[in-house]
């Protein structure tokens, strides 16, 4: 039986909602980049932030009273995906719905605050209120409580490819008789500490724009938000195939793994929603595309939405599904060099399939292919 996207939710630096965010991407809008600082250092970074109004109508659930931004992004995306699914395919029984939460950095704001107190004044000042929110699965727990999910709930941790691994896990779970649908959610929150860490890791640039496929790579800018995809048996967009991929030991080896994944997914009717973000990932994907699907239409939203790490692959799935639903792909801004790839012009496209290619920053790569019956 086919696996389909029954509903989606999207919380991004360009606002909230599938159609509003997609329209703004098609218009060429870019999310708001704001300076981000911390008392621990004089250094300032930039990050794409979710506008406050995007979360203004979240339900006043007690679980959200103290919850960090990551939990709020996830709640908003999850609620929206479920609402869209209910209006598109009818009732969804949450007792028979599984939840998979994909994340990379997790609740870094509260974790930093918790540990800062410990470092600053000692273990006796550690906060019992903050500690539970530092646990990776806290956002999933809040979301399960808000939506009334009582069955399977998994938090998956990984790099940028974790969203695809979560989709793979969802497809495996849906083989189980006890599960009718699976809500895959991914979220991240931006913080100065993350910016500093990725900067020291030599992956971050201090100011926009993100220039894709530039050699040498000029770096990425972090972002935040959430995405949600409800997988079920009904829906307009079908999950054609998922490749959980493999791990690369060195950055130079990434293109071989990405190429192997793309080899299995390549299709002449497909566009590619890439994970290119201004780092080594761009060249890995460029080489793989040149080898496996030359001429394929390549799109990445990272210049407009930033690099949301653990949420990125699920955002790519949403973008791919929207490309198929609307028959359009946004133009790619800030291409300072011509890498010889085929980029969208902003006009209508005639793809019936979309390949999601995800090369993470920390050794994981995976991919999947979506399709729509035209």
């Amino acid at each position, binding site marked *: 039986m086919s696996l389909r996207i029954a509903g989606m939710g999207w919380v991004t630096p360009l606002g909230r909602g599938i159609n509003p965010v997609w329209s703004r991407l098609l218009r060429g809008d870019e999310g708001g980049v704001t300076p981000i600082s911390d008392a*621990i*250092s004089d250094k300032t970074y930039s990050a794409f932030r979710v506008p406050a109004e995007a979360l203004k109508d979240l339900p006043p659930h007690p*679980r959200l009273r103290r919850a960090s931004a990551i939990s709020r992004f996830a709640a908003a995306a999850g609620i929206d995906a479920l609402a869209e699914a209910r209006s598109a395919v009818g009732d969804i029984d949450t007792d028979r719905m599984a*939840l998979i939460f994909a*994340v990379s950095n997790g609740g870094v704001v509260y974790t*930093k605050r918790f*540990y800062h107190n*410990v*470092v600053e004044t*000692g*273990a*006796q000042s*550690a*906060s*019992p209120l903050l*500690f*539970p*929110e*530092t*646990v*990776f*699965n*806290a956002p*999933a*727990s809040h979301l*399960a409580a808000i939506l009334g*999910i*009582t*069955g399977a*709930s*998994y*938090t*998956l*941790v*990984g*790099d940028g490819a974790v969203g695809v*691994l979560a989709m*793979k*896990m969802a497809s*495996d*779970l849906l*083989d*189980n008789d*006890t599960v009718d649908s699976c809500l895959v959610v991914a979220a991240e929150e931006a913080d100065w*500490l993350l910016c*500093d*860490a*990725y900067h*020291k*890791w*030599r992956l971050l640039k201090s100011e926009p724009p993100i220039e894709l496929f530039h050699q040498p790579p000029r770096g990425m800018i972090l972002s935040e938000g959430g995405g949600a995809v409800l997988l079920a048996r009904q829906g307009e967009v079908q999950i054609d195939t998922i490749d*959980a*991929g*493999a*791990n690369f*030991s060195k950055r130079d080896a990434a293109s071989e793994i990405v190429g192997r994944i793309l080899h299995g997914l390549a299709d002449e009717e497909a566009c590619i929603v890439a994970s290119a973000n201004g780092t080594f990932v761009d060249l890995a994907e460029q080489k793989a595309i040149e080898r496996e699907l030359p001429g394929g239409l390549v799109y990445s939203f990272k210049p407009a939405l930033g690099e949301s790490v653990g949420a990125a692959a699920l955002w790519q799935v949403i973008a791919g599904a929207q490309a198929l639903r609307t028959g359009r792909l946004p133009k790619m801004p800030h291409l300072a060099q011509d890498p010889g790839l085929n980029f969208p012009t902003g006009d209508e496209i005639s793809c019936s399939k979309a390949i999601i290619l995800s090369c993470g920053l*920390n*050794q*994981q790569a*995976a991919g999947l292919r979506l399709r729509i019956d035209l």
Partner: protein
Amino acid sequence: MARFNDLNGKTPPARVAVVATGVISPLGCGLDETLASLRSNKDCVSPVTQFDVQKCRCKTAGQVPDDRLPPNRNSRKTARVHRATRMIVAALEELFKQDPEFKPELTVIGTTSGGMSFGQDYYRALHRHRGLRHSPRWIANYLPQKPVIDAQSAFQISAPCQIIANACASGTNAIGHAFECVRSGKYQRVLTGGYDAISELVFVGFDSLQASTPEKCRPFDHNRSGMVLGEGAAIFALEDLESARKRGARLLGEIVGYGISTDNHHLTQPDPSGSGPRRAMEQALRSANRSAEDVDYINAHGTATTFNDAAEGKAIAELFGGVPISSTKSMMGHSLGAAGAIEAIVCLLALQTQFLPPNINFRSADQGLDLNIVANESRDAKIDIVLSNSFGFGGTNASILIQKLAA
């Protein structure tokens, strides 16, 4: 109790064998040392040596001595990889000695905190504005998938890694999901288990909640006062039984059931009714097509916190009556994401050598809990099917059923 039977004429699912395992924990390095500690009722909890605990209430934990960890196997210096990586490598070394031919298609591993101590090192260096030259290494190796990828690559494995972070249920959730993957017929061989290395942030966190105890860890005791933390890694090679038999693999046991539930009562406290654990245990029985009467021993989650033991104990008493139970966390502490995997090893050893592992430090029964505790000493017993429970923050509950399998 009615026997669960819901095949409805479908093709029976694949049977899932454990063909190799490896473990390192406070109980010992490897299966033999682990078994010896269990049989001799050894208390493996000791004063914390990894970081300063002067300002904590609790000052003890179950720890793996650094000198028992293997050096890094590849070209990178040992100091560059996290302790957790070396724990996983130790477990994998033992596993691949048993079955060098095992080639996983997927790896599913549970953890709660990955390479947390590297994150701490980075933050402390930032705070004192010096010593940051190591920060790229700390940052690149901090994330939870990294120790698993590094350990896999030491054995030339590149299987995709699903890293489950379901708090204290992570290890059992990982084994349970891996079991379902093989049982569905989609995968023949899956590597699974759990790991966690003790870290200051997590230790202090549990201390701040007063969930950890300054005394002995006494699960299900009337005077229980909390958990002690632990650490370690345990890895399982799961394989379709038919395929394992065909290639002549050793058969160490069979995973027969898995249950998972989510308890939305509170982020850190279970519903006092025990409904969350009960649903997980019932689902494990249902998925195995077994009844509660079939279960011969339960390795309880048993953290020795007031609320957890009360909720779990209530659910076990209602569902299983007088089945012998113990919490081996009393001996080695609570190793969080590794706990379910290490305890599954304990269950396998119990099945193989026919004994009941002990619940040490037990002094007096909680009158509110009608439980058959294996108090203080291991004892011989005829057991064929055992249940292992893990419940965690966020309301994640997981149970697996393991049965003895003739070679």
